[in-house]
Structure formats: structure tokens, C-alpha cells
């Protein structure tokens, strides 16, 4: 642990590797002790996000998407959660970082937007006060008046009407969309280089969702920050993300450029996600094909490929490979940038021949 901290300090002083992406997560594993034994919520997860880019993380509840991003912010209790691997933010190693130094980073260089804005904002304090607090913590020399001015400025920036009056409102006086804007304002008040948005629009109406996504994109362009969007809505991913990471049972099962993953998916779980969600513009002959079964318990995950009990294509793999051996995260036939965890030898062909005609008949010709 001490060794890690010292190397990170060294790398920070040396200005780190200039070619490295802003956020690099390497072999991250998070294990929680429970009464029923250790629960590994995230295993061997690796990804990176560059400044100005957006990574979308997709997966069902319990797939480890929130746990992994909370690890980036150092929000797990280090006394109970066991975190191994490496997380580097702008060259600083975060795993094993002292709480005091983590606090300097959190909310300053890295910020998070939570799903439920009403629960994430304190009901007893005025919006402006909560925003100002976030500013003052990282600007100890600023006066309260400066902080308030900054709060008004941020509320204006995220599109809240009459920000100089609304700054004195309580969270309950804001509508759902405005609360989410206030949360974004709070996240961005210190110009963070990395913003993690955990289901930022799930509780919102489509029209408000569109407003919030527009806002996030404008702000990203303006501040050139790296953004991670965690969601289960593939439509949001398609419109926002440069890179997509699909998680299942705590592991990355497919990772690559967004266009690649959504137009040429190579992992049956990703196919399942695409086929089980209806689409507003789909062909009316498209079928809705659910993924059978339920997500597995992480206390006793299935052997081999964790998706095999629900996989509809495992008979195409010779022998009992899917049940006995965990497939490695390897590049498929479509280049090194697109990695997947699957034993299927020719996933692209299977997708084109079997899956696509059912879920999007109109796309078969084009492909």
C-alpha cells in the first residue's frame, strides 16, 4: 500500500506518462465481505477514458457498473471493501490513496452526478448553499460572496431560469429536471476533468432527458472533460458515447467504440440487450426476444462464462467449453479495438444470419 502511494506521488511529480488517457482503470477487482461469504462485485475490469471523450457503461442492476465507478471516486469503505488493481486519474494512483488526499481530488478533479437528485440533495439546505459548499471546500480562500456568485453563475450555465432568485430555493421547490440540473451544476462547479454520471436521466421524462443530455454534451465540449455515463438505455449510449463497455456479473463482456459495439456486436449478451428493448423506429416486423432467466447471484456465480446459463448460442460452441472455461477478453474478427468475452468462433456471422433478421429486418440488406 505505501509503495503504491509513493509511486503515485512520484508519477504525479514527474507529470505522469503524457500519452496516458486521463482515467485509466486497470484490472480492478472489488470484493465485499458478506455474511454468506465474499462477494466479488467487480472482477478484472480495465478501461480508459480520454479528455473530451465519453465512455458509456451498460449493464443490468447488479452488474457492477455503479460499484466500479464508485471505486474511481474512492467512495467504498476501505475497512470492509477489498479493492485491488489500479485506478489512475491524471496520473495519480487512486487505489490506496489516503482519505485526506482523496478528498482533495473528489469533487475537484472528479465529480459524480447521481440518479435520484431528490435523494442526493439535502432537503434542509438551500440549493445555493449546497452549491457554495462544494465550491468553498476546494477554494478555502474564497469568500462566501464569491461562492454564492459562482453558484448563481453555475445555475445560469445549466439553464435554470432566474438563477439569482432560485439560488435561495430548497430542493423540493425545484421540478425533477431542475433538480437534475442543479446536481449537474454542483458536479461542475469546480471544473472537474472527469465527470461520472450514474443513470443521470433514468428518473426523467423523455423531453427533460433530451434537455439534460444536450446540456451534458454542451458542457463537455466547453470544459473538455472526460465523461462516464452509466445507463441501461442503449439509445442514450448510442447518442452520447464514443466508447461502450458492456458489463455482466461484474465483468466486462464487450468493450470497444460505440458504433462498433452497437452495429456489430459480437457477444450474445449484447445481442440480448439489443433484442429485448423495443425501438421507436423499428420495423413493425421486428420481434421482441427477451433474454431468458434472471441475472446470476454474485455470491455463487456460474462456472465458466457467467452468461452461459442464459445464453441462446452456447450449443454452437463445441464441447462444454462455455460451462468450464471463462473466455478471455480478446479482440474479435473486427480489429483490435473491439474486445469481447465469448467462445463463439464466428459471432459476426451468427449475428448477421440469425439475430439481425429477427430484431431489425430492415437492416439486413444494408449489412
Amino acid at each position, binding site marked *: 500500500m505505501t509503495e503504491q502511494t509513493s509511486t503515485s506521488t512520484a508519477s504525479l511529480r514527474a507529470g505522469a506518462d503524457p500519452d496516458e488517457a486521463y482515467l485509466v482503470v486497470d484490472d480492478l477487482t472489488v470484493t465485499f465481505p458478506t455474511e454468506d461469504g465474499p462477494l466479488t462485485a467487480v472482477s478484472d475490469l480495465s478501461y480508459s477514458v480520454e479528455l473530451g471523450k465519453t465512455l458509456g457503461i451498460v449493464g443490468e442492476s447488479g452488474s457492477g457498473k455503479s460499484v466500479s465507478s464508485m471505486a474511481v471516486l474512492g467512495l467504498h469503505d476501505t475497512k470492509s471493501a477489498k479493492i485491488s488493481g489500479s485506478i489512475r486519474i491524471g496520473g495519480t494512483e487512486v487505489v490506496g490513496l489516503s482519505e485526506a488526499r482523496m478528498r482533495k481530488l473528489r469533487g475537484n478533479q472528479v465529480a459524480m452526478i447521481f440518479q435520484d437528485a431528490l435523494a442526493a440533495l439535502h432537503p434542509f439546505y438551500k440549493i445555493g448553499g449546497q452549491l457554495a459548499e462544494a465550491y468553498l471546500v476546494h477554494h478555502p480562500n474564497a469568500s462566501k460572496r464569491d461562492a454564492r456568485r459562482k453558484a448563481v453563475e453555475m445555475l445560469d450555465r445549466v439553464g435554470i431560469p432566474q438563477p439569482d432568485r432560485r439560488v435561495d430555493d430548497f430542493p423540493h421547490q425545484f421540478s425533477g429536471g431542475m433538480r437534475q440540473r442543479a446536481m449537474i451544476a454542483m458536479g461542475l462547479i469546480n471544473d472537474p476533468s472527469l465527470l461520472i454520471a450514474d443513470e443521470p436521466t433514468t428518473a426523467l421524462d423523455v423531453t427533460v*432527458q433530451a434537455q439534460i443530455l444536450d446540456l451534458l454534451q454542451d458542457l463537455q465540449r466547453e470544459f473538455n472533460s472526460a465523461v462516464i455515463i452509466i445507463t441501461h438505455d442503449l439509445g442514450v449510449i448510442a447518442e452520447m458515447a464514443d466508447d461502450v463497455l458492456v458489463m455482466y456479473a461484474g465483468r466486462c463482456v464487450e468493450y470497444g467504440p*460505440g458504433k462498433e459495439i452497437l452495429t456489430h456486436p459480437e457477444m450474445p449478451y449484447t445481442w440480448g440487450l439489443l433484442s*429485448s428493448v423495443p425501438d*421507436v423506429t423499428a420495423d413493425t416486423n421486428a*420481434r*421482441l426476444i427477451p433474454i431468458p432467466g434472471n441475472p446470476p447471484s454474485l455470491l455463487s456465480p456460474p462456472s465458466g462464462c457467467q452468461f452461459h446459463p442464459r445464453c*441462446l448460442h452456447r450449443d454452437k460452441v463445441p464441447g462444454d467449453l462455455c460451462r468450464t472455461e471463462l473466455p478471455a477478453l480478446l479482440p474479435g474478427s473486427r480489429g483490435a479495438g473491439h474486445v469481447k468475452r465469448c467462445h463463439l468462433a464466428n459471432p459476426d456471422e451468427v449475428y448477421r444470419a440469425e439475430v439481425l433478421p429477427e430484431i431489425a429486418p430492415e437492416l439486413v440488406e444494408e449489412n
Partner: protein
Amino acid sequence: MSDLNLDKFEDRPATAEVSETPTDRREQISFADLAAKGHKPATLDVNAKPVLSVDNLKMYFPVKSSGLLRRTVGYVQAVDGISFQVPSGGSLGLVGESGCGKSTTGRLITRLYTPTAGTMKFGDIQEDIAHMSPRKLKPLRRNVQMIFQDPYTSLNPRHTVGAIVGAPLSVHNVVPKNKILPRVQELLEVVGLNPEHYNRYPNEFSGGQRQRIGIARALTLNPKLLVADEPVSALDVSIQAQVINLLQDLQREFDIAFLFIAHDLAVVRHFCPEVAVMYLGKIVEIADRETIYGRAHHPYTQALLSAVPDVKQAAIGGRRERIRLEGDVPSPINPPSGCRFRTRCSLAQEICAKVEPPLLQIGPRHKVACHFAGELGHHPQTPVTKELLGVDDQGSPVPGSTPTPVELGPTWSDRWFDVKSKTMVSA
């Protein structure tokens, strides 16, 4: 009573069966098998008789002043004069933003609220249930059941599944006490749960399984109409499709009509051949699926549809051009005059503030409430409704002109107002 026949269920859809059996016990099913049982969107039967006909339904909730007297100082106009029909065995989708009154509508139809005004004619003899006394209503209640959004709070944690699903049977005295259990087990099997699990508690089930319990409870009394209030929005994506397919199977099997309330436009598109769009307590557009999703005429419907993120956008990259709706929905206590959408509408002119646009039939299966109704990008410059309503472009009444009476009921007519030629045409 038991018109549920178990024999029919020998070839239950694989989706339901697979989800509950441990993996080792079942045979591997192939993708092609499952795909063949996958579900295409439901289709519209234009000749189906309505099972429910709602006319000018209103629900005003009083707003009380603070203080001792608690005088009524205003009303929340949650539902303000809506008319629609649900065809027997079909489904009508109700979409809109939160606070537009879609859930209130569902609760009115199940008579959890008594409406302020309007009629709701139900069943073969089209009895009006809007103001029926509780005693007369009780035998009818079994025909209208509800599926709730949140499977975690809508099941009593202290009751077993058997007690939850069997409760409607004992309340309505439809079967003797000793026959309740077999019927409950039958129902559990119908929704794809293990019938042996009747004595378990809700907390022993996953979210998708709990929603199935809620569906079994709603099916207990063989309803003719199910009000499904956001039945899948609390479930995981991979489970949503399982539940939607189950509902579609049940609809086909038992000829149940659905009023499907949801904010997810894609799910509604898949499940409902007919869709009504609500805004601030009013229906602004109602039409068959192809019309709503293909050539909507109301600017609000167009904005809603353009706001939905699309997976296919990945192939193109970047974000779709969309109509930006500014601000929030106005308060239903003091809604805008005239057209309620005008405060956020890009087409709004003077007439919109003065005259409320009627919900006008403009196609064989298409009604819209807008002075400037037209396809996206082809909205007319002058109000299409002015001759019909006897007003000028600004909405002031033209002296000497007589407004044409407009049919505003829930039914579909053979004659409709063509927005292009601005005349009445027939089929």
C-alpha cells in the same frame, strides 16, 4: 368460473418457463426457437366493439387553503374532459410526461376515484360506471383490474403469494374456500411461476417474478379490462421483454383489453396498436400506431417522439436533430388559456391563447387537437380550424358566421375533417 384451461398451457411460451427453472434442469433451447416465439407488435382490429367508452371524463382535485376553515381555493385539473374507447381484446396506450394525468385516468377507470364529471360506459351493455354506488359497482369490479408499477410496494410483505393471489377470490366469493388453492396454483403456472411456491413471501422473489405475481393477482377474476400503470418501468431491461411478452400472451389467450399507461414510447409502440398522447389533463392526439409514430400531426407528439434516444443513431454517430421543448409542464391548477401546450409550442399564435382547439377527427383513425395540425415540417401558416370554429386568423369570432358543430365523443366517424383541403370528407 374457471374458464382458464390448463390444457392450453402445455406449450407455454419458453420465455416464461425458462426464466424460473434452474439452468441444469432444462434442455438447451436455441435462439431460433425463442425467436419464433418472440413477439411482434400487436395489431389493430378496427371492427372490435368497445369494452370501455369514456366520454368527457373530468377529475378535479380541490386545493384547500391553510387555516381553520380549509376553504377550497382552486382545483387541480388532473384530467379535464378526455374521451376515448378501448376496443374489446385490444389495447390503448396512454403516454405523456409525468403530471399529465395518465395515472389519474387509470385510477378513474378502476374507480379508485369518483370522477368529477363525465361517463365511463363499460362492458357489453355499456353501463355507466362513473357514478355507480359502491354496492352496485362491486360485481363489476372483477371485470376491471389493475397492474401496478412498483412490484416492491404493491405486494403485502406479510402475506404469502397464495394469500395475495387468492384474496380477490374470497372477496368476491366466486369459489368455495377449498377451491381457492388449486385456482391460485393454476394462475401461478399461467404467469410462469412455479405453482409450488404459493406459500412463499414476496421478498423471496426477484423483481420480474414479483411483477408476475401482481399480474396473476390481476388475472384472478378473469377481467375484461386490465389497467396496466407503467407495468415494466421498474424492471431491468432484460426482464422487461419477458413481462411484455407475457402480457401479450395473456391478452391473446384470454381476450383481455388493456389500457396501457407508460412513458416509454418504444414499449407503447410495441404493445399498443392505438395510442393516445396526453398533455396537462387533455388528450392532444389519438391515432393508430402507424399514424402516431409515422406522421404525427400535433407538435407535442412530434417533440415527444424526437426526444427519444435511438439505438440506430450509433450507425450514424452524434446526436439526432431534435425539437427542443423548453421549460416544464405548467401547473394544472392554473393551466394556460386556450391550447394548454401553447406556452411551450413553437407554432403558437394569437388564436392558440384565445380558442381551445377541439380534438378533431382528421383521418379514419386519427384525432388531433391543434389549430396548426400538420406533419412535421409541413404545419400550415393559417389555422386549419378557423372556418370550422367561425373565427379569423387571430381567433376572434367572425360576425355572422356559424361554427360547424364538431363531434367530440369517443367514437370514430366515417366522415372526418381533412386538414389539407379544410373540408369534411368521407371514407
